């Protein structure tokens, strides 16, 4: 067992309904105790969904614990099939069913004989995968199911379309700004003359699942959900996929060039077509996106060398690290992710762009690292936003887990060229807010807070005493560097065996450490 207060990725049975509720006419039935269907609340509250979430629970109550689910699960599946006529019902195990170890596969087999709907058991084990891994697996499972069946029936449409098209794989419910990203991706594809074949799971692919192989390539914007779905047809039938997230100027260009590669490869059979996206990339970079210009502008120059801490899922944290370091000249003192299963990819991605790397799902560790690093701004999840509040450091939210405020009504993509604008605003606003605070401090007149009460408070040894004069001296230091100076002074005092901190010690520490 381990103690935990707050978690980044939810349990596995949040991942499976994320796939189900993104698709049209797919219903998830959870084998779960009363109250485990809070996924419905997460969808209808933070996402403000207008429709009833297509997720119900087959309740595992005391009777089920005593004698097994018997016909209950089968009954609930067939009933739902009658009531809502979904194309597909996904039976979703929870921690309870993982522990009970009932033969859910058998229930699925029985139910699929009776029901008109297709029935699949989501292959996720609570104790082994989290929300993101579960969503990834479930998506792959469903996408495999239909072509396999179509193959058996000889109805699989294998011939690709005449004009270049792409599948977008992995945009889903409760994904961070996924709706907006999806719109932006469609725009990007349209701009370069690529049609959208299917978007999965958002957009309802079950109705026409055999369509997927018609696309020329698959585009996977987020590593966490969709990667295994794209890897499978690549291995199976050589359908290429692009997993470079088009976020930030260089990566969007990179992603676009890879699309050029995919299209060019196929288009060589049509020699009349010259595929060259370079002019488009150049035009977008210099004039449509403002981010390249922003990084040259004097506003951004003022951010050079400012310190930031980054934390989030692998996709967003890695992208943000590269944007801050490469495009804006900000020093990323720590880049971190809670996607431990993808740690290797993450460290490889952010190599050379950060001082420190932190892979953990313990929010306290992230908080402590942030307090130690004392950055001017944080890019993180809602958890880090609260850390920022406590430490008095501004935070821009870049990744799940999020609150309702991160399901904005306005258009806020993070991907593509419009995404670069949104990110530049987010970053600049975080840092400016920080800077506005500081000029107030510089004259010293506005800061009336007692020095001792100020966060962040690095651990103070009991042996250190500050005389009133040095307290006063400390209060003259601008607030945004005060914590760091205090820490340095105390470290210096300890190293030199000084127990009384006087003004002299403060200066000695500064000079000593500066040298």
């Amino acid at each position, binding site marked *: *067992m*381990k*103690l*935990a*207060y*707050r*978690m980044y990725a*939810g*349990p596995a*049975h*949040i991942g499976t309904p994320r796939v189900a509720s993104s698709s*049209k*006419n797919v219903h998830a039935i959870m084998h*779960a*105790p*009363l*109250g*485990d*269907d*809070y996924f*419905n*609340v*997460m969808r*209808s*509250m933070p996402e*403000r*969904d*207008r*429709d*009833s*979430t297509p997720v*119900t*629970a087959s*309740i*595992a*109550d*005391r009777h*089920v*614990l005593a004698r097994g689910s018997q016909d209950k699960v089968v009954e*609930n599946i067939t009933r739902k099939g009658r*009531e*809502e*006529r*979904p194309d597909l019902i996904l039976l979703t195990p*929870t*921690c*309870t069913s993982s*522990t*009970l170890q009932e033969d859910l596969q058998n229930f699925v087999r029985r139910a699929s004989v009776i029901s008109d709907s297709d029935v699949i058991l989501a292959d996720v084990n*609570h*104790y*082994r995968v*989290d929300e993101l891994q579960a969503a990834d697996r479930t998506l792959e499972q469903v996408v495999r199911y239909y072509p396999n069946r179509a193959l058996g029936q000889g109805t699989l449409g294998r011939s690709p379309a005449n004009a270049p098209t792409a599948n977008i794989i992995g945009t889903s419910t409760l994904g961070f700004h996924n709706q907006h990203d999806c719109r932006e991706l469609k725009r990007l594809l349209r701009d370069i003359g690529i049609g959208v074949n299917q978007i999965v799971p958002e957009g309802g692919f079950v109705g026409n699942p055999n369509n997927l192989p018609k696309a020329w390539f698959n585009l996977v914007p987020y590593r966490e959900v969709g990667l295994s779905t794209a890897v499978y047809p690549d291995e199976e039938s050589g359908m290429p996929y692009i997993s470079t997230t088009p976020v930030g100027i260089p990566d969007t260009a990179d992603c676009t060039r890879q699309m050029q590669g995919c299209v060019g490869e196929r288009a060589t059979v049509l020699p009349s077509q010259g595929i060259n996206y370079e002019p488009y990339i150049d035009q977008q970079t210099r004039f449509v996106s403002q981010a390249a210009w922003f990084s040259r502008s004097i506003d951004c120059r003022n951010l050079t060398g400012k310190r930031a801490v980054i934390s989030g899922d692998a996709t967003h944290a890695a992208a943000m690290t590269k944007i801050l370091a490469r495009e804006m000249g900000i020093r990323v003192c720590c880049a971190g992710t809670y996607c431990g299963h993808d740690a290797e990819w993450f460290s490889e991605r952010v190599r050379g762009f950060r001082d420190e790397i932190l892979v953990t799902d313990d929010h306290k560790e992230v908080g402590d690292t942030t307090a130690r690093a004392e950055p001017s701004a944080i890019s993180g999840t809602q*958890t880090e936003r*609260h850390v920022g*509040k406590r430490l008095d450091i501004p935070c821009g939210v870049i990744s799940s887990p999020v*609150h309702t405020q991160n399901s904005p009504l306005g258009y806020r993509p993070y991907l593509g060229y419009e995404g670069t604008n949104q990110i530049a605003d987010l970053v600049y606003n975080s840092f400016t807010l920080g800077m506005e605070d500081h000029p107030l401090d510089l004259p010293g007149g506005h800061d009336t807070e007692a020095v001792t009460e100020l966060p962040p408070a690095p651990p103070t040894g009991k042996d250190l005493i500050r005389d009133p004069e040095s307290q006063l001296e400390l209060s003259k230091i601008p607030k945004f560097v005060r914590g760091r100076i205090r820490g340095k002074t105390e470290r210096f005092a300890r190293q030199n065996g000084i127990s009384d901190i006087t003004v002299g010690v403060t200066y000695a520490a500064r000079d000593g450490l500066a040298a």
Partner: protein
Amino acid sequence: MNQENHMSMKRFETITFERETGNYHTFRPISCVARPYQKIEDSFPPVVGTKTCGYPPQNALGVMVFAEPRYAMAEPEEGDTPAQPNDYGESKRLCPQVVGDRDPSVIIRIGTCTTEIVKMDPEGTAPRMEAEVGVPTVVARANGSDYASTQGEDTVLAAMAHRCAEHSVAAGEGRDPARVGPPSEPPKVVPGETNPPLVLFGSLPSMVASQPSLELKRHSVQVSGWLPAQRYTDLPPLGAGVHVCGVNPFPSRTATTPMRRRKCRSVGAPFPIGPDGTRARIEKICPVFGIRPIGLRERESKVWEGLKDYLKSVRGKSVFSMGDNPSEASPARFLIGCGTIVYEIGTPYMDKRYQAAEPAPLREASRDMRIPVPRIVEKPDNYDQIQRMRESQPDPAVTGMANANPSEARGIDTKWSVEFTSAQIHGFANARDVLQSVTRSLRRSDMGDPGWTDMVSRDNDPTLQ
């Protein structure tokens, strides 16, 4: 009298209980440990449960989770779930961390479905832990296999009732060292105290908790203590000769524990929700102590008088309560008293003994207002309820959060049921708040219909096609 009239007369008289499939949406009982633990300042509840259990409190408690909560999950990993879980060893390893960090006066170990399935023995290990760690450990099995939402609080309070000191007039006699309570000195004699000890139970916010006490005091009934108290060390003594009375409709286990295990006398009374309920409650409690309440009816009418503006807007309106916690009957009874038609009261479970004092006023209110008695549906089926709700088109439907936005999008006003469990709705003084929260959607509708009531895309809802 024609047949139809006869039928409707009959409906006025009887309350029908129905029971459905139990496929309804509610909060998990562990979400409701928040109330007692916030109330009991020196407590710390580790929940022994999986990620599944940890996720909703972090969403339900929202911002509270960030404010250095006295709350933690002891999350079983795969190795903790085989046939012989090393529960004791693991708890022993984690407990010092909890105690070291927080220094609580009591640890409330919350059991979950997982602890039930793997058959951990928290009641068995708790006394050992208690002896070794030196902090009282109370066990509450607030799991979703057995309970719904606010019943979680009930399991905690029932466990607490065992820890109250023994009430005895003779000082220091028969004290159980495991039970806390005031140091062994004679019970404080409150000047003017006329009645045997009366302990109220239910976690009310401190602001509201003083109200029921004050109302009773007006009629010379002294409240000797609350379960839970603000601090664990201040739990009231229980024992023969102590009267107990609940302030909320859901802690029915808590009601039986002092009665059966501590020889207390339980006072069955309506719950102080709405002026009618508050009055009926005092009328029930006072005679137990041989007191005749004076001026109570006048006081009640004064409160009704003050509600006039709201009454105008709720009279003749209708309510459909889907029901996700066992406290729906009392607000419904108050609304019927206001002239609102209540089509259906859904509820996970109605303890007909503990809530015995409610159906009668519910029936009376219906008769007085000439409104048919609502059907009470235990263990409702949300899918079927939604069909009934769409037919009856209530203004507003009281629903959980999962069904609120989808109903609003279909032109049905809603009110979150969770407000009835967290808002201040008790006593004469808060009657206004109940109506305020129910009329919120009505008041918004009063702003006029902009023509946007139906907000659903037809292709997204197969049931509408």
